[in-house]
């Protein structure tokens, strides 16, 4: 997944208009971002840990999406969606992919837990596990892509990343 590293139009240097210290969502988005990074850290070493924290991972992603859509990408705010359209579209895309992948992974996980309590044949157990492992990997990948995009958005909105001076492709 590529990160949006440029706005659709040439932004003005310096802090965006319409924001104030009070409205600054940077600390909260930073907190949410850190939570996601912290969650992914032990899972990088042991992917199976995701099975018991998938709902929490998805909840954190949902909290981040709500925060970014309601407090970051707002007209006359830190990142005006009209001005940072490509960044906003990419962010929405990775969120939708995370959401949809979680939906399937959660279903597979639920089915796996229910079936584990029954007496399955070795072939059934192994087939079940193969499906689960595949969707687990896919979900972790989508969650990482989402996290990467959040890092990019956070960089822009906190001013850590300077917007490019030249206009890129519109839209």
């Amino acid at each position, binding site marked *: 997944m590529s990160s949006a590293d440029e706005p659709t139009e040439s932004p003005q240097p310096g802090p965006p208009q319409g924001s104030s210290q009070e409205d600054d969502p940077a600390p909260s988005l930073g907190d949410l971002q850190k939570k996601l990074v912290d969650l992914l850290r032990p899972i990088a070493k042991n992917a199976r840990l995701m099975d018991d924290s998938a709902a929490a991972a998805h909840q954190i992603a949902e*909290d981040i999406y709500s925060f970014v859509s309601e407090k970051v990408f707002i007209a006359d705010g830190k990142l005006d969606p009209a001005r940072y359209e490509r960044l906003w579209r990419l962010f929405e895309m990775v969120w939708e992919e995370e959401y949809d992948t979680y939906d399937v992974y959660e279903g597979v996980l639920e089915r796996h837990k229910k079936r584990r309590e029954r007496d399955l044949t070795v072939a059934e157990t192994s087939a079940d596990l193969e499906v689960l492992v595949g969707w687990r990997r896919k979900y972790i990948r989508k969650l990482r892509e989402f996290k990467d995009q959040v890092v990019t958005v956070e960089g822009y909105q906190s001013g850590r990343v300077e917007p490019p001076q030249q206009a890129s492709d519109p839209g």
Partner: protein
Amino acid sequence: MPGAHNVVPLRPRSSPPDALPVPVGCLGAAVRELDGLRRCIEQIVHCPSWSVAEWRAACGPLMLRLPGARDSLADLNAIRADRWPDTEWAVLVRAQRAEVERRLLGVSLAMNALVTAEAGNVDAAVSFCSDGAKLAEATRGLCMLILSEYPAAAGGG
């Protein structure tokens, strides 16, 4: 398709221990309960019985401990990565807790087979000892994880 929802504010990192989703006192009670279960199981596994009557006698104390252990695991279920100040720790605890729950189920099934058997059930005995050793190990790991983050949970009684 996903939509916007209300933002759920994070609990500040400086939350007092009792403001945690599971207060430290409750963590301590769970550690004591689970540690009691572990010691009980280790005792049985290290000195396996051979007759149905012996198994019944040996499993009596364990059966008494199961409801308390299950309650403790239910209390620890409130530890979730999205609600706990230390996210990484919560991920580890949650997985370890699930492991204890799985092993506990295995031990319970094996124990039922042992104490309801008409004659000695070797398969159930082997299964009990194997699952019991794994349950003891998982329980020890869970207690250590909790105490590593909240040493104060070791106190009380």
